[in-house]
């Protein structure tokens, strides 16, 4: 597989064309707006947490295929999970992205997220893949604070 094909896996292009959980919904405890200042990608993201679970993640994102697909895969992975488990998945994805292509992805944890393994070899695109994940972590922390 060429590096380009490794970057643009079919799974990524599928999520890009048909993003899951897109759009902004109620209810939510926190809404954040994150931007990638170097390229201008933006995401507005809401999190609804109840009983220690991520009940909903909704978002409105503008950006490249990698950033859009990443938001879609992230929402798939964390919605319905206990917050602790969702945070662990976030850590796992972060490790994969920061691994410069040397980290073997764990399909049991990351599911469709393993398709982003190829992105880690393109330093300029790692930030695209991480934009919505970092927004989610921020919003989730704010949701928990709002409830405590």
């Amino acid at each position, binding site marked *: 597989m*060429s*590096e*380009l094909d490794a970057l643009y896996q079919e799974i990524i292009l599928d999520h890009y064309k048909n993003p899951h959980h897109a759009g902004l919904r109620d209810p939510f405890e926190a809404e954040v707006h994150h931007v990638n200042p*170097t*390229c*201008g990608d933006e995401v507005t993201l809401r999190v609804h947490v109840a009983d220690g679970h991520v009940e909903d993640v909704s978002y409105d994102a503008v950006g490249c*295929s*990698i950033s859009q697909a990443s938001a879609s895969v992230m929402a798939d992975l964390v919605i319905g999970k206990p917050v602790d488990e969702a945070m662990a998945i976030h850590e796992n994805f972060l490790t994969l992205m920061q691994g410069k292509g040397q980290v073997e992805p764990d399909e049991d944890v990351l599911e469709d997220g393993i398709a982003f393994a190829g992105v880690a070899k*393109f330093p300029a695109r790692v930030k695209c893949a991480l934009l919505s994940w970092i927004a989610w972590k921020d919003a989730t922390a704010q949701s928990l604070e709002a409830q405590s």
Partner: protein
Amino acid sequence: MTTLSSTGHPALAGLLPELEVVRKDFPILERTLANGQALVYLDSANTSQKPQVVIDAMVDHLEHHNANIARAMHQLGAESTEAFEGARDKVAAFLGAPSRDEVIFTKNATEALNLVASTLAWKGPRQVGEGDEIVITEMEHHSNIVPWQLLTERTGATLRWFGLTEGGQLDLSDVDTLITERTKVVSFTWVSNMLGTINPVAAITRRAHEVGAIVVVDASQAAPQLPIDLAAMAPEERPDVVVFTGHKVVGPTGIGVLWGRAGLLAELPPFLGGGEMIETVRMERSTYAPIPHKFEAGTPPIVEAVGLGAAVDYLRHLGLDAVRDHEHAITAYALDGLATVPGLRVLGPLDATERGGAISFEVDGVHPHDIAQVLDSRGVAVRAGHHCAKPAHARFGVQSTTRMSSYLYTTPAEIDALVEALEYTRSYFKLD
């Protein structure tokens, strides 16, 4: 397009004579990328590549003449000072500056613009205050927006700006309501780094001077590709300040130029304080050196100045008229080529005579980052994003664009490679 060049490509009228020889001056153009791909460098509005003479001038200075300037009482110090001041003479000749002392070396164009915007906030005959207005335009690079926002925030002055027409020109219809007796500064780009638009410097400057405003022109994109002759301009049409950066005129990074009218530079207070910019220092207060050194505190970028001197000499040797004609020919050829790509929309003037060599565009269904990524896999280097011109993008309702930017070494075959790579990008993302 009737004759064939040595490369087998139809020759375009206006290309630099002996383009293949000129390209050999730029060693980086010979290199290959991953998988043996040839480099097609179309990101010169971002930074230009460097000819061997510039590289050699810098290496020679470091190997044989290195010393601090204007303060070393030895032979190397004299040689280094002579090389640094010689570079100032070369830049003055490049701009047609009325006086070589009006050429100030800065770190880059951004620092040059900040120098003006900062010193105008400080006590002095030109100090900006409440009720005063600063006029810029919606097509500015962030470096010609943010310093003026800072100035107005610091002083209580008001920031106003020219909007843009659908075609990417400045909307000058409200010039008389924008430029008034309250206007203290009008600052605008000569050539847009995003839209490519060439702005009417003489007309805007004349209007601004009628109300007594200072005119600042960002020539970062103009200096590489348009002949500039400040001394030949009518005084009422000559800007008060013109800035550009070294690395876009085949020179090194780390050095920029502020040309300023001597009378204005005398009125502005010093920017940075330190060595070199003083006349005498006592513990109570200091007095300052005359221009240009008044604005050059500390050890300057000496080797970079030497490199810039070699760079502008190289451009003058080629002839800025010839460089402009080359850019014009390549830009016209590129606009024709891009027009053949389905779903592609160019932002900015579509007539090559009205624009410079930076062409920003969108392709339906593919994000600019993804375009740039696929292009890079084919060896074609372009820029994707907002190009430090977010307001101009917002004006056209787009978040980001892909930008190709040619220069004096760009060939028609490289434009063909771009167009082919764009076709490939569309098929890669299954848009056909």
